[in-house]
């Protein structure tokens, strides 16, 4: 079987793809990235590897028409507030109207985005925006 790695550390692939993060033991703030201490309370007592799930609500979006050289455009960029806490920057699919996308539910999807010299595949994620406006999580 082909070896796969997540494109970023806050994506966990096994046993099923999900977003992971850490949660401050003092104030409950949730983070996805590597941290020195909590930006809310200054504490450093984190629960790591917390499963933040695959669903959330879009908080903002834009359609990028001019990107870095080599990046295909247009695409929709935005942020999803995860139901289990934390916010993730991502590419949104089914979100051609960014204003309409805000407040809608979105679900994690993954796919292979590259293969290195050793044949290892990198798996990245997008969030697909759902048709029906979501109720608050």
């Amino acid at each position, binding site marked *: 079987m082909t070896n796969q790695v997540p494109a*970023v550390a*806050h994506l966990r692939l096994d046993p099923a793809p999900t977003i992971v993060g850490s949660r401050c033991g003092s104030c409950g703030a949730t983070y996805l990235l590597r941290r020195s201490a909590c930006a809310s309370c200054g504490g450093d007592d984190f629960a790591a590897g917390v499963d933040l799930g695959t669903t959330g609500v879009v908080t903002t979006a834009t*359609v990028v*028409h001019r990107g*870095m050289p080599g990046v295909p455009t247009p695409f929709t960029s935005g942020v999803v507030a995860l139901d289990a806490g934390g916010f993730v*920057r991502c590419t949104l699919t089914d979100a051609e109207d960014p204003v309409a996308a805000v407040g809608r539910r979105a679900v994690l999807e993954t796919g292979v*985005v590259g293969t290195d010299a*050793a044949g290892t595949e990198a798996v990245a994620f997008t969030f697909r925006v759902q048709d029906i406006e979501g109720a608050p999580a």
Partner: protein
Amino acid sequence: MSEPIWIVGAEMTPFGRFPQWDVVDLAARAARGAMADAGLGIRDVQHVAVGNVFDAITGVGQRMLHEIGMTGVPVVNVVNACATGATAIRSGITAIRAGEADIALAVGAEQLGKRGLLAAPEEPRGPEFAARGRDGAVLDTEGLIGSALMPGVFSEAGVSYLAANPEASADHFFRIAEKNHFHSSLNPLAQYQKAFTFEQVRDADMIAWPNTSLMCSPTGDGAAAVVLVNADGLARLAPGVRERAVKVAASVLVSDPWVEDAEARWDVNGVTRLAAAAAYEQAGVGPEDLDLVELHDCFATAELLHYENLQLCKPGDAVSFLESGAPWRDGSLPVNVSGGLLSKGHPLGATGVAGVYEVVTHLRGEAGDRQIAGAKVGMAHVLGLGSACAVHVLVR
């Protein structure tokens, strides 16, 4: 709250593309202009602060003094994102208030050359995947996992506003760019100096919806400088200079207050609200006292948000504030009569000083064709993502 400070000299170079001048030429020209405006020479200056972003590591302040006068005074080179110039001004103010100077020179300068404002491409990666950075990315994620480029950041901020305020539409952002480009047609130092219609703004190349190319500040070169004094410094000046002095009623610099989504997006609002509230408190004036405002319209979307963030209107009233005509130069509270960053230009290190220069020039009644008649109180705001937000309130 502490020792009063005045601006007694101010100068700004034209903003634009000047391949014939390096960053030191630009800084020196602004500095000498500001000193001449105050009737002072380099030997009168006791503290120098120079704001610059892209050449900061080269000691622009010292290189400037090598051109205009090597006097041995302390020089600090300041970099603080798009608030760099305003931070240089604050450096001068704090040196005076610390008792180290009566007269200080603050300069902002940028020679962008061929550099763009988009982030530089990543360092090349090896043949096999290896995690790098705070997100542990094994490959370049820009455009793959969303976008973190500036146009996207400010477009997303605008979209959030549209989603929360149904009366707002992209048309309001187009209108703001139309206004600021019109304003710059009266400013001989502006990069564009050209009015564009609403339709031209709307139909220009889309960068990141809703911001088109005419709604993104242009890259460019330029410099601005001010001379700052306390009461002792003021007393040394010629009467004609003293009577043109503009008082710094507030000088505020803040970083981000905590927000729960700070990892996923830059918060352009909270940091500005924090700075504005502190500035009004420090100045002892309210938004109703302002005669003009220069605010950080790096993208057209930002300006609408800052009407509320700077308390120029009530929360939720930015659209009606704009539609009333208030922020146009003949309106009740003119905003960005210089043309703003959108049309005057945005040479990063110079921007924060240039906003103060603009307000000072109006308060002195010396703004020529673009003068806001009778202006007595003005505000200059800059926001560097990361974030650094500076607000100055100036009073004549």
